[in-house]
């Protein structure tokens, strides 16, 4: 499961934005072991290469959703896949979002850009078992209104709060403009009993965590999903090191009490 890719067929593709596509995959024969929110797969585009991609949806029939932004050779090839195409899949890899840690807590789900993809299955898990926690707040930042993912689903996520803000408004945008942390003023949570789940560009993660600490969240209640170059996902290629961590193994989801001192060293 972890060394040799298993064939998965693309059964559906859904364009999310101009450069981002959600693909639904089903195993051709054997399925990988079950995924959990926050974990990732190595997805192989035939002849082009592999990329680490978080699971964006875990379907009851063994199917998986991945939302991929075209950023380079492999991700472009994945975005260009048509239904019927076959990819190779390895996984699941990495630490997931620790939802049990947040039992009874208010939840802050904070996403920047494609960072919403790994948070989507977490939100779905929360919505499926609403009695396990307090209030669910989803805070989404996007570059422009056109870069917003999962548009049709967001209304159902406001339990009670789902806010959206953009960096650059387009014509006709009536919503908020500004960084995602500005939404924290609207979210409904009591800091002493809140767990935050944060994914996005690293500067967004650091700014968000700083704000949350300032508002009284404990560092180990701020879970962040980090990104580094990854080739093997099995802890053998050395690329995903962040100081003492191998992020394919010890991450990508890391508590901020561990991440903070590492992220504050330049070029670590």
């Amino acid at each position, binding site marked *: 499961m972890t060394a*040799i890719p298993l064939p998965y067929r693309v059964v559906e593709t859904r364009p999310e934005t101009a450069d981002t596509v959600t693909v639904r995959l089903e195993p051709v024969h054997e399925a990988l072991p079950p995924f959990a929110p926050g974990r990732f797969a190595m997805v192989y585009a035939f002849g082009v290469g592999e990329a680490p991609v978080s699971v964006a949806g875990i379907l009851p029939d063994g199917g998986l959703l991945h939302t991929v932004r075209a950023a380079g050779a492999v991700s472009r090839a994945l975005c260009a896949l048509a239904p019927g195409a076959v990819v190779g899949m390895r996984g699941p890899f990495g630490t997931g979002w620790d939802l049990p840690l947040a039992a009874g807590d208010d939840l802050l789900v904070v996403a920047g850009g494609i960072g919403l993809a790994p948070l989507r299955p977490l939100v779905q898990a929360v919505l499926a078992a609403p009695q396990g926690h307090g209030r669910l707040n989803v805070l989404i930042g996007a570059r422009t209104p056109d870069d917003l993912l999962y548009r049709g689903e967001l209304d159902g996520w406001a339990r009670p709060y789902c806010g959206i803000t953009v960096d650059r408004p387009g014509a006709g945008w009536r919503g908020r403009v500004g960084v995602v942390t500005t939404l924290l003023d609207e979210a409904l949570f009591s800091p002493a009993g809140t767990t935050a789940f944060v994914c996005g560009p690293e500067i967004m993660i650091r700014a968000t965590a700083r704000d949350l600490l300032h508002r009284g969240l404990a560092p180990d209640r701020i879970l962040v999903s980090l990104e580094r170059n990854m080739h093997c996902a099995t802890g*053998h290629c050395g690329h995903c090191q962040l100081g003492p961590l191998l992020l394919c193994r010890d991450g990508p989801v890391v508590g901020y009490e561990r991440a903070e001192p590492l992220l504050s060293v330049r070029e*670590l």
Partner: protein
Amino acid sequence: MGTATTDSACVLDRDGLDALVRVLRARGRTVVGPTQRDGAIVLAELESAAELPYGWGVELEGGHYRVIRRDDEAAFAHSAGPQSWKNFLLPQRVRQWTADRGPDGELTVRPERHDPASYAFLGVRPCDLRAIAIQDRVLTGGRHKDDAYRARRDGAFLIAVECTEPGATCFCVSMGTGPAAGPGYDIAMTEVLDGAGHRFLARAGTAEGADVLAELPHRAADPATRTAAHEAVDAAAGRMGRTMPPVDLRALLAGTLDAERWNDVASRCLTCGNCTMACPTCFCTTTEDVTDLTGDHAERWSRWESCYDLDFSHLSGAGPVRASGRSRYRQWMTHKLGTWHDQFGSSGCVGCGRCIVWCPVAIDITEEAHALHQEALDKDSPS
């Protein structure tokens, strides 16, 4: 003539060494050991023990390597050469799998078959014995195993030779890896060359090692040979060319990420990556995906890659995480001496000195460690 067992030592003469290579080859093993070739002592397949570098030594310094004629016939009086055993256990390029795409888009992935040569490594220095154990831990000690490495490693028979002639760049004593052989060998030997002749005190570490020894012409270890062997190894411990500062290196490296010294070393380092290629524990690889002309046959290869490559830490959109040479040298050295402990439960440095010898500008990991230590001391007690 006695029967060697795992706890009894015996003595081999040079004809015993000849027989050792013969016996191992007869058992179907590819014997690899040191031999003098083109001005270096390299590791290569040996057809007979006559190819060992009898009478050759090495002169080592930062950025300097030269073979020299010795005035005796010692076979193992040389320290680490340009290669290490990882060249055989973790080859530079390895095909991981092949894949074919059928007419209907169907994907068939075929794992590589792992039937590697069954190696016998003759002349594994104690530091390198530890380096093999460290790579074992990295590649097969975690949740995911590298099966190809495991197969090569399981098939390998290790003959350690303790060090009696450390090089000027050696510091195994500081790293606790030599000059006596630690665990992990099938056979360990100590070369003795004195008035009583040229011989090898040998002991088995495994049943197979004992089997092999029993097949060789040997005699029970005599007290004089034992004493001479132990004294030679003890003396070697006192003749290390380099030392590490006598502090907790992991803590030193964790506490000096912002040191001024990194700028100093960065001004000298060419980020050429030689140190990573020569290091017996450096394991980092990258992947290559290739297709043939039809486009329907693809292969996945892994090959050595260096953390000094700018692309190593590349992130789409963001570029390299470690853009400066300073951050790349720091990554390498803090990984070797510090964060390796966090990741794999030991140091990543065995004190073999290769990185010092093969650095084109003579950057010396021990000198850098001493400088970091000094800078930390100065910071703690400003005068």
